[in-house]
């Protein structure tokens, strides 16, 4: 999910000094990521040129405001009232009413526009999530505890009270700690789970919890200050991104096969879960 955020962020943002007059600002939020603002913006800049070309905007039509902090994201959204933004699903659910947010596009990764989260333990040590009550839980996704509780755990567990949380901005460090027995469990995104094979951990791991499918978040728009036409144009530009000769290389680089216009209904179950937990 977070890689998705950055991929999309990098497609849409530019902080170049040669911005067109009144460039459109895009707030980019990547909570929990181990990302440097300066470097993220530099990466986004190269990808944005492709999007602008595909979408037939004047070069440097967009400028980004990037943050990896949830609090800062909320502040930026409130201050800048951007037409478009890239947020995590958690921040979208939290801020959607306040900023009239509607999803525009979703990424497709390994053929899917959804992901699952898993709680991993050393094999055989714990049999269920209930056995982890009062135990330590690590992971980068813990940056958004409300999201984990309301959506990933579907309201069944409050992370802050159920576990002893050991939030980290480095997934690999959490997994090494799990491997050594310094952590009881680690919660992983789909992408992180898929990367486990590349780590050479000593102890085998297993999942004691697997979430339901959760839609991947992409670009959102403020529906009161964008027209349907603007949103459609943005969507089309991103949909064309991975088919573009240059854009394709960038999409391949980040493991995104395509961007797809989103059916807002996809997020309805998440909205219901979020509101139920509020």
């Amino acid at each position, binding site marked *: 999910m977070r890689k998705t955020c950055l991929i999309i962020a990098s497609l849409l943002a530019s902080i170049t000094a040669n911005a067109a007059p009144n460039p459109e600002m895009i707030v980019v939020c990547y909570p929990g990521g181990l990302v*440097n603002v300066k470097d993220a913006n530099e990466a986004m800049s190269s990808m944005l040129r492709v999007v602008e070309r595909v979408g037939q905007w004047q070069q440097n039509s967009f400028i980004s405001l990037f943050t990896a902090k949830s609090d800062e994201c909320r502040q930026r959204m409130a201050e800048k009232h951007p037409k478009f933004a890239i947020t995590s699903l958690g921040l979208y659910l939290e801020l959607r009413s306040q900023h009239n947010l509607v999803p525009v596009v979703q990424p497709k990764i390994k053929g899917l526009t959804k992901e699952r989260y898993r709680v991993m333990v050393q094999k055989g040590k714990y049999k269920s999530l209930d056995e982890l009550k009062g135990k330590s839980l690590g992971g980068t996704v813990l940056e958004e505890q409300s999201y984990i509780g309301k959506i990933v755990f579907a309201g069944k567990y409050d992370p802050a009270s159920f576990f002893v949380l050991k939030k980290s901005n480095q997934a690999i460090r959490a997994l090494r700690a799990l491997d050594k027995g310094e952590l009881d469990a680690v919660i992983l995104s789909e992408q992180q789970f898929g990367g486990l094979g590349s780590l050479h951990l000593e102890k085998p791991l297993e999942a004691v919890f697997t979430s339901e499918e959760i839609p991947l978040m992409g670009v959102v728009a403020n529906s009161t200050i964008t027209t349907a036409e603007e949103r459609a144009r943005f969507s089309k530009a991103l949909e064309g991104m991975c088919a573009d000769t240059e854009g394709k290389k960038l999409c391949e680089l980040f493991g995104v096969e395509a961007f797809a216009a989103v059916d807002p209904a996809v997020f309805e179950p998440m909205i219901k879960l979020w509101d139920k937990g509020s």
Partner: protein
Amino acid sequence: MRHTRFFAAVSMLAFVTGCAGLQSDHVRFDRHSDCPKQTADEISAKQSLLGPLSDTHTLECALTVLRDSQDIALLRTSLGSRLCLHLAERETNPEKREKLAAEGVELAETALTHKGDEEGAVHYYLAANLGLAVREHITVAMKNLGRLESEMKQALALTPDIDDGGPMRLLGALYLKAPAWPNGIGDLDKALELLEKAVKEHPGHPLNHLFYAQALWGEGDEAVLTQVKAEFALGEKLLAEGNWGHNKAAWKKEFDEFRQELGDAAPAYP
């Protein structure tokens, strides 16, 4: 929260020579006719005098001799690759810089095929040149993180102390700046381990302290802020007071960039 520079990896990322992405033609030097007549043996004999303190013309003349040489004994050393690196590092024109670095990769690959006894140094300069050759080409760089890591690891195993702990410094910086797992080989813990070792074993090199400060900064922990500032300040002082030749300007720029990132947390100028 402070973050490591994951996309500054473009400055450290490598691509195997002979593959798409590296410049294949060589830089033509303007004052070629002014070069003193010297043989490959003469160049070899004075190679320890050729470095960051040498003037550009001297290095260019030496490289010209190597380009035309068929002397296997010379070609199997790291000298050619090292000369290219010194020239590339001071070159302000990006295209020329990439060409020089790409040539440095070529010469290192040639040396490896001849299996010289400077293999560690050859791997080191190959890696360093590759980083420069691809720094502006993100997709090429990303595809070859594995190769760069491999070259640096070989250099570390064979000649860990070259260039004031260069392999530790470069490999540590790679782990610091590359995209983190699962997207890439970025690994803050490995970076911290290597860079801490670099500053302990080679405390006189300013970049060892700068990169270590950056790694500590990447922890995002207020508790290490004092150490971040101390390492940064020490590195700046070493840079200001040392004779680093043509590297000084480029390294000062790196310090200045990190100073900006530290913002209010930055120590006073030395």
